[in-house]
């Protein structure tokens, strides 16, 4: 049901929280943004997401919804008629959009994170290979979904744009590590799409600052490495 109070529990760095912020922005919905400290999780977060205790959580009129892709679909279904639709109207195109959104998380992101967190150089190199292969598939996906238009969603931003576009900060951070999954020669369409997407006002207001993210990533990785060597 439209209207009502929207609260988002997230963090400035989380690309998953960013997906929800993007969806809310694109739909023109205002919300209360609550910044969580993941080392000191709020009672609200724990009680709203007792199963995973993770961000993002959207709380709509007191009822929590968890998991970023599920939240985005919820926003689209609960606020039908408010702003543009994020999921396609056609049911087959919807199935295709869901397929690629799941692929982004299960394949692309999974191997991408491994390029940072892999325990050995071998593991990291394998992860790089997998990520580049996944990026190739996403390039083909863009061709299939956009049909020559500027976004996965066509003329306007859609579900897959939001799902993948939340990684724009991760892309910029990766570049400081010399890793470009969406470079201009290998994935020209995606590269162009990312520039286009990042230039949108709705995106600019929620993208984390790259320098801040690079510092944050460095700290987290150093901590993880220290934890491993202390065991």
């Amino acid at each position, binding site marked *: 049901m439209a209207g009502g109070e929207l609260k988002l529990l997230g963090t400035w760095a989380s690309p998953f929280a960013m997906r929800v912020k993007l969806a809310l922005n694109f739909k023109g919905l205002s919300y209360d943004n609550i910044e969580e400290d993941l080392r000191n999780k709020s009672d609200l977060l724990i009680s709203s997401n007792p199963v995973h205790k993770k961000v993002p959580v959207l709380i709509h009129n007191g009822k929590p919804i968890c998991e970023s892709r599920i939240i985005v679909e919820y926003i689209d279904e*609960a606020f039908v008629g408010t702003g543009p639709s994020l999921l396609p109207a056609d049911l087959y195109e919807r199935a295709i959009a869901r*397929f690629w959104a799941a692929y982004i998380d299960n394949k692309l992101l999974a191997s991408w994170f491994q390029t940072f967190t892999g325990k050995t150089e071998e593991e990291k190199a394998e992860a790089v290979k997998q990520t580049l292969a996944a990026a190739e*598939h996403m390039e083909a996906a863009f061709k299939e979904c956009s049909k020559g238009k500027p976004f996965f969603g066509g003329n306007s931003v859609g579900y897959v744009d939001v799902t993948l576009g939340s990684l724009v900060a991760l892309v910029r951070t990766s570049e400081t590590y010399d890793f470009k999954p969406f470079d201009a020669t290998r994935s020209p369409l995606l590269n162009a799409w990312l520039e286009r997407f990042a230039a949108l006002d709705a995106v600019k207001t929620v993208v984390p600052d790259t320098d801040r993210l690079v510092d944050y990533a460095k700290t987290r990785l150093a901590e993880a490495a220290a934890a491993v060597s202390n065991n």
Partner: protein
Amino acid sequence: MSPVKLITAFGSPFAHRAEVALALKGVPFELITEDLYNKSELLLRHNPIHKTVPVLLHDDRTVSESLLIVEYVDEAFDGPRILPADPYDRAMARFWAHFVENKVSKPFWMSFWTEGEVREGFVKEAREMLAVLEAQLDGKRFFGGESLGLVDIAAIGLMGSDDEFPALRRWVKEYTSHEAVKKCTPDAQKLIAYFVENEEKYQQIAKATL
């Protein structure tokens, strides 16, 4: 529109999900059974990304990934709803289906195909996750309430849950006696024989994912 075809494999719980969805809707379909150790050109052509079953062929449309097929079938065909109508309830159904998929299925299956300490680890993990599901079932007939829904279909692989979980045990009985499910359940003896025959293969697959 031409008849629906489903590329499936014997014993696959994922393919079973798609079959149940079609049976629930009363959609006639043709089963194309794959040998997953010798994949056909048809499967590789229709699911080049994941190369897995199930794959739904509906006219010139191809849908893969079992839970996505279930959602597609729900939207494409008339008949009893598989996902609820209310957006919040739909989000909850998707959440719990994902929970089953990402948190329960892996340790549950791995506990069958591993040994010793590794197996003990998976048994413990599966038990913790099943306890969460047990609590979620909370006296309902199905996860979907009075009728079968997305979460029930997602959870079908979790047969033989142990005595610790009375609600789940009751759910297994309800689920397996449902008309649509009975149509899609392979003969128990055949299934057991199949798993015994392929035990080594499954153990190797399990080892490779560790």
